[in-house]
């Protein structure tokens, strides 16, 4: 019986060592700061593509527009506004939209992490993002409505 216990310990220890060593092989670079100092306002082309040269960003926002339309919003003026926060999350909205979308980056795509409706049942007429380092400031009609991070509206701010 005692012999059996020893053999189990001998079996687990090498596996654990391999796992620990494999963990040591990956490198982490931190802190990293992905923030854009300023939001970009990009034209949406016929195919639904937007391009930004400074940040070498190219996105297709067709699904975003379709989602807005399902939700009662509509892209007005053909421009969308994007900003990226310190953690690397993207915040997207546009004139005529009902929502603000918070995206995280994945392999070859952005996937929405959070969708926020800033003003209930109203489309945005003059939305804007300001970079404030620890958070993103959201403005509508020249007024700061609230502060945002990737989890959503920062509590106690709305």
């Amino acid at each position: 019986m005692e012999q059996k216990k020893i053999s189990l310990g001998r079996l687990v220890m090498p596996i654990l060592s391999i796992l620990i060593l494999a963990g040591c092989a990956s490198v982490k670079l931190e802190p990293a700061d992905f923030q854009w100092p300023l939001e970009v306002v990009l034209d949406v082309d016929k195919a639904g593509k937007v391009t930004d040269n400074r940040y070498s960003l190219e996105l297709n926002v067709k699904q975003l527009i379709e989602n807005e339309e399902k939700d009662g919003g509509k892209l007005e003026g053909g421009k969308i506004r994007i900003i990226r926060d310190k953690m690397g999350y993207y915040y997207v909205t546009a004139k005529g939209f009902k929502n603000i979308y918070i995206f995280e980056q994945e392999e070859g795509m952005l996937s929405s992490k959070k969708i926020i409706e800033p003003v209930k049942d109203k489309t945005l007429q003059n939305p804007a993002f300001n970079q404030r380092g620890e958070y993103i400031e959201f403005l509508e009609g020249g007024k700061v409505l609230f502060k945002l991070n990737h989890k959503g509206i920062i509590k106690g701010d709305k």
Partner: protein
Amino acid sequence: MKKLFLIALLVFFSTVSFSQSDYEVVQDFKNKAKQIENELNAASTPEQFEKLSKDVQALKEEFIAKKGLLDKSLYPETFDSFFEKLEGKLKTGSTTAKQITELKQEVTKLTDLVNKLSEENNRLLQDIEALKRGRAQDQKTIDSLKSLVRKLRENLRQRDQLLAEMVDSLVNQYAYQTSALTSAERKTMAQKVEGAYLFENVRRVINDNVKFLETGEFSSDDLASMKRDYEKFRKKWDDLAPKLAELYIDKKDRAAEIETVKEKFKRWDKKIEAAAWSSINAIFYRKGISINKFSSSNEFENAVFSYINDQMQKVKYFDKSVLYDNYQIFVDTIWNRELKKEWFPTFMANGYLSSEKITTIESKFLPWKEAVEPSSKIWLYALIAVGILLIIGIIVKSSRREY
């Protein structure tokens, strides 16, 4: 109470937060800066630059509070580097504008002088034409014509010199620059060129000189000096033309004008040659030698050959002494004393006539002389002497017979 109310109102309004989007702030800055830059590019007077200097200062003060945001947003520029560049441009432009204003004043002065001389030249040209139309060939008319032509020539030289100085003071610094002009240099130079009426003045110089060359005959010295002046002016233009072409690469009319001026220079050169041949024509005419007109070396050769053949043909019908006189005037007086000594060196130097051609023509002189020279008079004298002796002999003989 009223004061308290006002303070309360102020406090109320200050608590209402009206915020501006950073994007709008940056766009606002960029738009205002762009407008200033556009005005800066179009500015040309010191007053405009002074106003722009104030605008730049105001822009800086308006956005200094947003320096941090603009530092990040104007990438790769920063707030400071942007203003440094703008102020540098402003300073350069302002200095150039001052220089241009000073140059314009100088050019205006020179242009006035050029205009005065041009007007006087026109009057002189008219006077010369009037005298020539009068066809009075008395010494007084000839003298006044000569004096007018001299005066006109002197005026043209002065005027051309003034214009050359003007061109120098305006564009010299660019004309000999081998590298391509920067856009600022292009702009400055274009302003100077237009302000000095460069094209108009160059055209006028060429036209006046061409007109002057049509006024009549000239001495070989006159023509040599006119050719020198032409070469000097053309050299200046040749140095300048590539820069002007670079300057007016987008302006088709000006680019075409550069070509036109080039053609005009060619015409001027041809006119000098034509005037030179015409002056030789006149020498023959004045000495009573009726030779065919010529205006090139080939025509000259043909005209001389034709004249010599004609003279040799006339031997059959005319008194040789007259033909021999013509030979002597042609060869000794005109050819050897005037043409060979005074004219041909200039002609050869300018490529109007080759030494081979002169030798070919001269090879005809000996046969011509042999054909027209009267027989030697010694034989005649000898015959007369023999005749006289014979007569004396006969008289003596007959008188002896009588005794």
